[in-house]
């Protein structure tokens, strides 16, 4: 039992044997015997350990750690010995106690004996053994307790107080005593043994070295394959101890040397510096260092260095531990890289998603915008055209004023929607460019005239086309005009005084500064067109004058318009014979720059970058002040870029801006003017006028001076206005004051072979200005009845000559002649000059006015001309009534023959054709009309028995009327909307069909699709 205790004690002390400062690295070792077997199996290579023993001794002697370790070991041993001594003492104490007890017992026993002897004599009372046993026992408990050896086993069979009893008792006691003595002997032996043990254990060094060896084994066992190097270096960083499981160097190559002496390469210096740092700071530190040495290649070590202090507290070296973590680092780096890549990927993905989302949104928004715009445009144009019609009816001044506001507002919205549609068209690439021949000078003039027509402030509009710009070039005139119009209206919008102008010049590598020079080009030797924009009528009047605006008298001028179209051809030829046309023998590309400049408010520099962006205006203030959508410039830029050019801007705040666009144009060598009679005639008119004053016909400088309200009465001019369209709608207004001889003035022919809706609309907008100023003009004018209406029919020709002496204006219209025509679609042919002259005279009488007359142009041609072919009276009445409700007037014929005749004599924008009709049914009539459209003759109709009747009012030889017909949309009207009848309709050349009975809905849809 005691032996066991000793052993347990041993173990306990062992665990605390290792110094506390080896933090957490205590060797928790099992019983010495238990692990021996295990350790025996392990072959421990002791080689990697390279020790400078001398140094170790030194360290143990001098270094604080070493001495404290030793001290601790000694202390521990002492403690153990003391503990053993204490235990032995306790044992001795126990023994002596037992000895005392047994002695005491002996004494008691003797006393008892005495007592018994005494009582032997006195107490004579007979007691049965059993009774006495009963009685005695309570009397002796205390005594018995004191006896170590109980006497319970004492059984005395003999009767009390008999001799036998006493003998037995004595014998028993003797035995007890013997046992006690024996025990004492054992204890003494044990004591001696313990002392012997003590003696045996008295050599601590052996024990310690054993423990140390065990720890050492464990260390080896653990470190054997660990990629760990352990070392100690002195304060010069020379190795004193090195443990390296993969040694590649011999002991002598390491001990006593520094890192730098052992190996070289990347990281060596770093590790040395690091160690030195630790040495200096006296604080342990960890660092990851990557080596790149010849010795072991590229490896990364996590290095732990701790300083070693002497007893005096000085650093005397470092302990160093390194663990190779190359793989881990690599892995870590890989992971980091992967993580980084993932992060980048994710960022990219989210970015992409965002972009996709935005793009989708944008696309959707654009689509919605386009759709919405279209949806809005249709009803809006209905509203606007209704308002226009309303304005032709008898309404009072106030109503007219309201209508004007309605119209101009409506036009604004339409413009905005058109802009949006245009933009989406350009952006989506739907817009196709067309190459057409056009004359830059005409375009510039036209644009300026248009601008002048709606000018509402005092501005000079000027245009200059450099000499080297060809007379005729090829490009998409519609788009170019749109750009010019846009830029000019923009310029006018932001210019309050001064001038706005267009300059056209050829771009050569060296002549980029041409436009600079052209500023001073408005000189006397050039032909100058002055347009006096008069306040009252704002008509598109262009004074034709060799002098400036103040010129009063003009000699009688010859005007070649009289004999249009023959004369213009001649004039055109003469013009084309000019130098320009012979300069370019073959078609070449020429870059022509165009400046649109103004003296307006300019653009602040910070607004320039966003200027061409959609919905961008210089500032919110600007938007409020000037209105607009901010789409104009964006469209311009897109259009210019679409045409392969570029649009730039330069601007100075408060000084003005200059927008420049440079576009490539094709220049054709031969200007075949005969194929372009319209433009030609116009050009000729212009040229003819020029001819009478100036010889310079190839260069154009145009000035549209500011309107002069006060000087109207004193200005003498012949006004001439024309819009800028190829389908020219022009009218002249020449008025003469002072009763001077008048110029013969003519209207340039207006022949409109094409019914292109766009151009028609343009025409409308071109004449819009004058129309809106009606009110003002009448109030200013002395002649109240001088509202003239010029109804412009698309295919109508006006050939009008006027020789009136006091000619204010003219009018060409069924309305103006006092005949309020119920059907605007009726042919309007004013070949009868007589009528016009009559009208003229009438107006002369009524208005010997000194001011110009208002001219109101109603573009009734906007209204589609519709023919209804239907034999059913009820249907006719219903359809007519519905059409009237929708603001349309229709011609009605009752069968196919009449339909063909109607088409022969007039032109329609839409035919509603009943399929089942007597005489010639709708299908046949459609076939005949289609045949005419394709062949250009009515042979098929003649064959079918429909005689071709030359319409009375049409010049039979006019080739345009017959040749340039477009395909008229023909809508069939069928009773049963079965698919077979639909097929029939399409097979016979109909474009669509509606099922009868006609309803508002299907009529409206049909009209929207085909004529709006």
């Amino acid at each position, binding site marked *: 039992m005691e032996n066991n205790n000793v052993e347990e004690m041993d173990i306990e002390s062992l665990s605390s044997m290792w110094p506390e400062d080896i933090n957490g690295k205590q060797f928790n070792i099992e019983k010495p015997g238990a692990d021996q077997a295990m350790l025996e199996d392990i072959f421990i290579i002791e080689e990697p350990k390279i020790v400078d023993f001398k140094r170790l001794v030194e360290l143990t002697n001098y270094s604080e750690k070493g001495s404290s370790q030793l001290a601790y070991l000694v202390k521990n041993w002492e403690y153990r010995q003391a503990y053993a001594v204490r235990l032995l003492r306790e044992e001795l104490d126990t023994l002596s106690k037992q000895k005392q007890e047994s002695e005491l017992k002996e004494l008691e026993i003797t006393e008892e004996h005495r007592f018994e002897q005494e009582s032997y004599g006195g107490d004579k009372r007979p007691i049965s053994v059993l009774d006495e046993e009963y009685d005695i026992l309570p009397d002796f408990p205390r005594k018995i307790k004191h006896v170590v050896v109980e006497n319970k086993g004492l059984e005395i069979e003999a009767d009390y107080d008999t001799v036998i009893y006493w003998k037995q008792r004595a014998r028993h006691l003797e035995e007890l005593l013997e046992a006690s003595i024996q025990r004492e002997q054992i204890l003494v032996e044990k004591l001696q043994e313990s002392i012997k043990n003590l003696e045996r254990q008295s050599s601590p060094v052996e024990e310690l070295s054993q423990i140390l060896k065990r720890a050492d084994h464990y260390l080896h066992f653990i470190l054997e394959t660990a990629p760990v190097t352990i070392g100690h270096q002195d304060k010069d960083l020379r190795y004193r101890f090195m443990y390296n499981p993969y040694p590649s160097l011999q002991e002598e190559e390491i001990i006593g040397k520094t890192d730098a002496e052992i190996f070289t390469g990347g990281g060596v210096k770093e590790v040395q510096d690091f160690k030195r740092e630790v040495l200096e700071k006296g604080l342990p530190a960890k660092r990851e260092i990557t080596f790149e040495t010849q010795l072991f290649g590229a490896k990364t070590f996590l290095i732990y260095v701790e300083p070693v202090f002497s007893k005096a507290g000085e650093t005397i070296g470092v302990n160093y531990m390194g663990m190779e973590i190359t793989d881990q680092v690599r892995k870590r780096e890989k992971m980091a890289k992967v993580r980084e890549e993932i992060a980048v990927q994710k960022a990219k993905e989210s970015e992409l998603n965002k972009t996709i989302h935005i793009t989708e949104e944008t696309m959707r928004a654009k689509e919605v915008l386009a759709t919405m715009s279209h949806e809005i445009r249709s009803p809006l144009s209905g509203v606007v055209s209704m308002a226009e019609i309303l304005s032709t009816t008898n309404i009072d001044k106030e109503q007219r004023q309201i209508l004007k506001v309605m119209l101009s507002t409506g036009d604004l919205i339409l413009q905005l929607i058109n802009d949006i549609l245009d933009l989406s068209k350009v952006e989506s690439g739907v817009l196709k460019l067309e190459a057409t021949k056009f004359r830059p000078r005409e375009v510039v003039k036209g644009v300026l005239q248009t601008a002048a027509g709606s000018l509402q402030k005092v501005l000079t509009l000027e245009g200059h086309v450099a000499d080297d710009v060809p007379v005729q070039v090829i490009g998409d005139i519609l788009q170019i005009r749109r750009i010019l119009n846009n830029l000019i209206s923009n310029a006018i919008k932001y210019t309050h005084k001064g001038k706005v102008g267009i300059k056209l010049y050829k771009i050569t590598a060296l002549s980029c500064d041409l436009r600079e020079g052209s500023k001073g080009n408005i000189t006397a030797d050039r032909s100058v067109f002055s347009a006096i924009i008069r306040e009252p009528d704002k008509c598109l009047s262009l004074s034709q004058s060799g002098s400036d605006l103040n010129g009063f008298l003009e000699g009688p001028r010859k005007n070649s318009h009289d004999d249009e179209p023959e004369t213009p051809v001649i004039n055109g030829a003469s013009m084309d014979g000019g130098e320009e046309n012979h300069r370019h023998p073959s078609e070449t590309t020429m870059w022509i720059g165009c400046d649109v400049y103004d003296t307006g408010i300019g653009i602040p520099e910070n607004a320039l970058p966003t200027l061409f962006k959609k919905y961008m205006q210089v500032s919110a203030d600007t938007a409020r002040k000037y209105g607009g959508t901010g789409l104009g410039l964006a469209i311009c830029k897109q259009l210019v870029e679409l045409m392969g050019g570029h649009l730039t801007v330069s601007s100075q705040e408060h000084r003005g801006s200059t927008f420049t666009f440079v576009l490539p144009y094709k220049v054709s060598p031969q200007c075949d003017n005969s194929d372009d009679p319209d433009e030609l005639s116009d050009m000729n008119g212009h040229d003819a006028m020029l001819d009478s004053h100036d010889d310079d016909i190839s260069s154009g400088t145009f000035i549209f001076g500011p309107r002069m309200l006060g000087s109207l009465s004193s200005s003498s001019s012949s006004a001439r206005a024309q819009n800028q369209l190829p389908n020219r709608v022009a009218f002249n207004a020449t008025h003469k004051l002072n009763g001077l001889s008048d110029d013969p003035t003519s209207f340039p022919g207006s022949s409109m072979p094409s019914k292109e809706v766009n151009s028609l609309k343009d025409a409308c907008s071109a004449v819009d200005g004058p129309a809106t100023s009606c009110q003002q003009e009448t109030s200013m004018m002395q002649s109240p009845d001088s509202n003239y209406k010029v109804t412009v029919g698309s295919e109508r020709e006006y050939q009008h000559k006027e020789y009136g002496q006091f000619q204010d204006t003219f009018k060409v219209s069924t309305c103006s002649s006092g005949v309020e025509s119920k059907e605007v679609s009726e042919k309007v042919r004013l070949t009868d000059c007589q009528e016009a002259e009559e009208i003229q005279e009438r107006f002369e009488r009524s208005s010997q006015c000194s001011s110009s007359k208002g001219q109101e142009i109603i573009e009734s041609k906007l209204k589609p001309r519709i023919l209804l072919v239907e034999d*059913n*009276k*009820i*249907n006719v*009445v*219903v359809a007519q*009534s*519905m059409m009237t*409700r929708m603001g349309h007037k229709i011609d009605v014929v009752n069968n196919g023959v009449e339909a063909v005749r109607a088409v022969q004599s007039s032109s329609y924008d839409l035919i509603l054709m009943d399929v*089942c009709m007597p005489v010639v049914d709708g299908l046949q009539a459609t076939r005949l009309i289609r045949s005419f459209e394709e062949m250009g003759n009515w042979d098929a109709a003649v064959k079918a028995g429909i005689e071709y009747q030359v319409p009375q009012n049409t010049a039979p030889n006019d080739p345009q009327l017959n040749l340039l017909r477009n395909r008229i949309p023909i809508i069939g009207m069928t*009773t049963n909307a079965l698919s077979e009848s639909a097929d029939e309709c399409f097979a016979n050349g109909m474009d669509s069909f509606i099922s*009868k*009975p006609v*309803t*508002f809905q299907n009529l409206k849809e049909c009209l929207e699709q085909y004529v709006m």
Partner: protein
Amino acid sequence: MDRNLQRQVANMRKSLFDQGYLDEQFIQLEDLRDDANPNFVEEIVTLFYTDSAKLIRNIENALENNPSDFERLDDYMQQFKGRSSSIGAKKVKTECSQFREYCKAGNAEGCIRTFQQLKQELATLRRKLETYFEMARQANT
């Protein structure tokens, strides 16, 4: 204006639609009424009856003389159907369709029978519409 009468007129109009005499085309005609043509519907209906009288006679003659000339009968009936549908005379239109079906099938007897029904419907509608228009006029005066 008599409110009661107006309500009666409205009821009558409703029943004309409910009983299938008229369809939505009639509403289209009603929509075409305006200040300039307050009696537009009546005028159209009158026009329809005067216009169809001749056509009915034509069909009658054709049925009497040439009951097997289905092509011609169909032609007439198509015209008549077109007119009926123009004023929204639904029941008449149905008879027209039936008539044309018989034409297609070459059933002369069916044609004659249907034509009788057609005339009856025509007369009924005329009576009803005349009453309706009369009442409407009274209600609005």
